Structure formats: C-alpha cells, structure tokens
C-alpha cells in the first residue's frame, strides 16, 4: 500500500472495525461516546466539537486508572490497519513505540475535500492516543486539521498528557499530529499543482494561450462541470 491511501479504503475500514472488547461498566454520569452519530449544524468546526466531547468524556472519569482503561478501550476500537500499510513511508518518526499513519483526501461530501486518517501502533497506550486523534480529525476539513495544536489535546488529561513535554521527541500526540498536518499539506499542495496543470492544459486547447510570461498571473477559473 502506498503512503497516500485510496480514500475508498478508509470508508471500508471504518465500517469493518476491529472486534470490540467487552465494555467496562462506567460511572452513571459518564458522557456519551463521541462515536454516536449526530448531525452537525452548518459552519460548526467538527474537529473542535469532537475534541470537546472527547475531553468531556475523559474528564467525567475521576480516577486516572479509569482514564487509562478508557484510553485502552479506544485503542481496541481503532479499525484494523492493513499489514501492507506498515511501510516506512507511513511510519511516524520520533515515537518510542512504532506508529503508522495513513492519510488520504476524500472528495465525497458536497464536493468539499475532507481528510481521512488511519493509524496503528505496537503499543496499546500509543494506539489509544492514535485512536483519540483519529476520532477527532478523521473526516475533518484540511484547515481544521492544520489549525489543531498538540496543546489542544492536553484537555483530555489522560496518561501521557500532551500538555507535558510537548517538544519531547517521544510525545506521541505531538508526533502523530505533526505527521497528519505535514501530510495534509503535502496532499493539498499536490492537488493544487495538479489542478493548475489541468487548468493550464484546458487553456492551451481553447482561445487563450498561456505563455511563460503569464505564469504566476491570476487565471480565470473555468467552472467545474462536476
């Protein structure tokens, strides 16, 4: 599997989650799981909303040990990551555990590009971190991914909180988020370049020829027929 995964794989993977373990009985005031489907009002930052709900979920667990157990629950809920995806191009550097991250851009909904993420690790705690970050950012707009910071995840107050040692090379939250953002930028830049090349090709075939002196000038946009 190449570094940039086909978005269709993500849709299939999210439907075929890893077998769920028996859920532990949690306190009565436990906040509802963020995986529950809920329509988002227009204009609401989905990623921030999910992060807030995830933070509330962890904060509702008073004991640190319960938060660890919840983190491991999230680890078990991470969809299966194909063996073929465990390639160096998908490895997240810097973590003490091995972490793999697959990234794709999905044009599925209303023509807007959304980022798709899948992750895995050989450490259960790192896997739990990955599951939390993927829960928040999978399906987010590129700009939502790029404006998120490691400190934002400090609100979860779970073991290995990213609020500590943000710049430490072993901070999994930091490493995974930076990797997500870097590859989001790369994907978006590659798409823009491809669109520019396509637009340049269409002009050459039409009445307006693009010369070298016109490069960098603002080109009239051809409406997207799709």
């Amino acid at each position, binding site marked *: 599997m190449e570094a940039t995964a086909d978005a269709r794989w993500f849709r299939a993977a999210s439907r075929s989650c890893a077998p769920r373990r028996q859920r532990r009985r949690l306190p009565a005031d436990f906040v509802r799981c963020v995986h529950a489907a809920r329509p988002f009002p227009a204009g609401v930052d989905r990623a921030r909303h999910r992060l807030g709900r995830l933070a509330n979920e962890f904060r509702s667990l008073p004991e*640190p040990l319960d938060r660890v157990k919840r983190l*491991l629950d999230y680890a078990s809920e991470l969809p299966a990551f194909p063996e073929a995806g465990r390639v160096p191009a998908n490895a997240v550097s810097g973590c*003490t*555990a091995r972490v793999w991250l697959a990234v794709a851009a999905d044009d599925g909904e209303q023509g807007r590009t959304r980022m798709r993420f899948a992750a895995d690790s050989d450490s*259960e*705690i790192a896997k739990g971190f990955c599951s939390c970050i993927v829960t928040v950012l999978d399906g987010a707009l590129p700009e939502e991914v790029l404006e998120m910071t490691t400190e934002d995840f400090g609100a979860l107050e779970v*073991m290995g909180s990213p609020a500590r040692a943000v710049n430490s090379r072993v901070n999994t939250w930091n490493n995974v988020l930076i990797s997500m953002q870097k590859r989001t930028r790369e994907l978006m830049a590659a798409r823009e370049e491809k669109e520019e090349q396509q637009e340049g090709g269409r002009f050459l075939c039409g009445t307006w020829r693009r010369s070298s002196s016109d490069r960098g000038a603002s080109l009239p946009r051809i409406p997207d027929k799709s």
Partner: protein
Amino acid sequence: MAASLCHFPPAVSSSSSLFVGSKSRSLLLAVSPFKHFPSKSSISASLPWTRSYAVSNDAAAFSVASPSDLRESPSLGEITRPDFPILRQVVNGFNLVYFDNAATSQKPSSVIKALSEYYELYNSNVHRGVHYLSAKATDAYEEARNKVANFVNAADRREIIFTRNATEAINLVAYSWGALNLRPGDEIVLTIAEHHSSIVPWQIVAKKTGAVLKYVELTKEVPDLDQFKGLLSKNTKLVVAHHVSNVLGSVLPIDEIVDWSHKVGAKVLVDACQSVPHMVVDVQKLNVDFLVASSHKMCGPTGAGFLYGKINLLSSMPPFLGGGEMITDVFQDYSTYAEPPSRFEAGTPAIAEAIGLGAAIDYLSSIGMEKIHNYEKKLSEYLYYQLSSVPNIHIYGPAPSDTVHRAALCAFNVDNIHPTDIATFLDEQHGVAVRSGHHCAQPLHRALGVNASARASLYFYNTKEEVDTFIQALKDTIEFFTTAA
C-alpha cells in the same frame, strides 16, 4: 546456575506497606549527619548486608526474611540519599523511585552549591583576564581538570580535554585524529552494542576517508570476543569499544582488548560513560589511547564531559574547532595553534559546568569508588534476580555470577506488553522512573530481535527497598495490561 550472593538480604514480604496500593508508601531514609557529603569513616562503619544465602536456578525459591532481619546498618543508598534533594519529591502521588541513572544521574547538594557559588562569587572568563575574578575562575577551572586527571589516573593533566559531553569528545577524535590518520581500506572495529555516539561519528568520517567499519556481533547477548580477535588485522587502525554496555549491563575486558589491538598497531577508544561513574577506571593501567565520559552521568552537571588522550597522540592531532583560546597567533591568512589541551577547547568553555564536575568528583571520591562499586555489584545482583522472578520477562545481557560482573542496570521486555506501555504505567501509576525505547543502541536492539526495551538503571543512592517497590509496581503493571488485553 547457582550463584552465591553474599551479604544481601532477600525481598520483604508482599504485605509490606512499601508496595503499590499505598500512596503512603515511603522509603527508608537515614538521617545524614553530613552537610555536603558523607565521611569515609561513617561509610566504612556501615556494612552493606550481613546475611548470605545460596541462589538456585528458580529465582522464586529465594528465602524471604522478615524486615527486622534484613540489615544491621544503613546501606550506602540510605546514607547518601539525603544529599540529593531531588529524590525527596512525590511524583503522581508516590515517592519518586528514580531508576533512569544510565540516562543521567542526580546531583548532590555540594555540586549544586558549587555551581551557584561560581555564578554568585567569581564568575569571569578564564585564561585571559588579569583581574581577581578571572584569576579565581581560571584556578577553579584548571583545578577541575586536575581532579579529572587524578580521578582517571592520567599521567599528565594536559591529557584531559573538556568537552560538552562524551559525544562531542568522540567527534573530536573522529574529526581530528580520524580525518588525519584514516586512509581508504583502513578498518575501524567496533561492537554492535555501541551507543550511537560511538557509531555515527565513525560512519561520517569513514565516508569521508574511505575507511571501513567492521562490527563485532553478539554471542549469548554479549559481544563475541573470539570474533573480535578474528576481525583484528594489519588494516585495523582503530578499535572503538564500550567499557560497560548501557543495555546489556555487560563489562568488556578493556585491558585485554587494548593488548590485542595494540599488537596489530590499532589505537583504542573506550566509551567509559557507564563505567567512570560506577567504578575505578585507571587509564594508565588500561593503557587506552582515548577514553571519553560525561559529567552528567557521574553526579556532575550537564554540558560537560571529557576526553582523555595520550599526550603524544593529542600533540600530533590538528584542531577540531577553530576560534579563540585554541590559537597562539592569528594572522590574516593563517594561524598557529596552542598545545593541548587548549588546542581542543575553542571559545569560552563551560566554566561552571567544569567546576561542577570537579565538585562531583570530590563527592564521589569522599565516598570511595571501590565502595560505590561494591555496593552497586550487590544491588545489581539483587535487581537482576528479583526481576528474573517476574513471569514472561526477558532480561538482556549476561546473568551475574562470581566470574561475570554485571552493571546495576537491566534492560528487559515482558511478553506481549510494549516497553513504552510499561514505562508509562510505572510512571503514572507508581511514580517509578525507568526508560523505554532503544537507548541510543538501535543496531544492538536489531541484533537482539526487538524494536525497544524498558530499562531500569541504578546508582549508589538507590536502595534495595526501591528495587522491591519497582518489582511490585512492575507486577502490578503487567497484571493491568494482561487483564486489559
């Protein structure tokens, strides 16, 4: 394998309040009558342990004595702990158990005071000024060099070069001696168990010079000395070897390695980062050509380390870094260089840090390196055999015995639990600090067939009770992850 562990009491019972589950867990602390460091008479009067028992192959067969039978006098760890303010803190609700000394050691009050006093009383640049403060700073800085020279028994104080750390010291040798002396086809022999700082600089210089790196592999999780002898040839120009492995805990016979290497005309560079802090290291007795160590692993501050090099070698080596201090005269188109050690200490040095290293040497010397080594030998054996009792564990490196000395550190893995999960849980739920990862020894971990390991590394201020706490915490951690799976 049966081994006799003399003078060492077995573990306390699991019902002790020292173990996990009780946030009121407290460590036994002897009240130290000493302001800065313990006196030799006090330490010599305290016998480590007096009970002896035989160890069988089954570590679980250890006899368990009652707490009242354990000791007749405070251990070295209990006597020295009060000198280290950082060890008194509570982490995540538990008294800190600091078992990451191979990464860096803690600093006694005397070293912290030496650093403060330098900046409070006589901070000034060294070697150039004629005023009072500069003279005092220069004297203290050079006195620190004398202390390092005496500590490793260097023949000449000029053989001690202050560097930022051991890594910089190795790079100094690589870029100065290596660049001058290595030719295409020349061989550098090093073990697969070397720290990255002993590998990467030689990879870089080998690429520039055309030299070739040859690695000594493992046999039974220690470097294969028979293979090492077989790799030596007239093409071998340099042997790079650790004295004590920061992962395996094994100790190499440096005197023999030097003897074999010199017979083929090769120089020897020894990484003594894990030996100088823990035992007597005599560079003349070992007859090494180069030796490096770091201040921060021997109770000294970070930002300082040293290179020992035989004076005839250093005198023949070109500068590493250029700038002030290392010159004699500077003209527009050329410069002449100072003699060692100044030739290799360009710019304003880490003055406070070197003075702090000197204070650390004073502290260690007041205890006595032999006493430190003897205490840690027993702590090492206790740690190893207690850790061996944990189910599904694999400890890397040799088992300690009467003939095999092992450093007081154990890198290990537990089946089906990632070492990072173990280290994280030990910290968050028990206040126990161990390290997880590759410990700057990735080639070694690949040779061992793993990606990472957890490592507990002790120093003379750690105690048997802390080992007991660590073992119980580890068992609790394993039970948690086993249940969660």
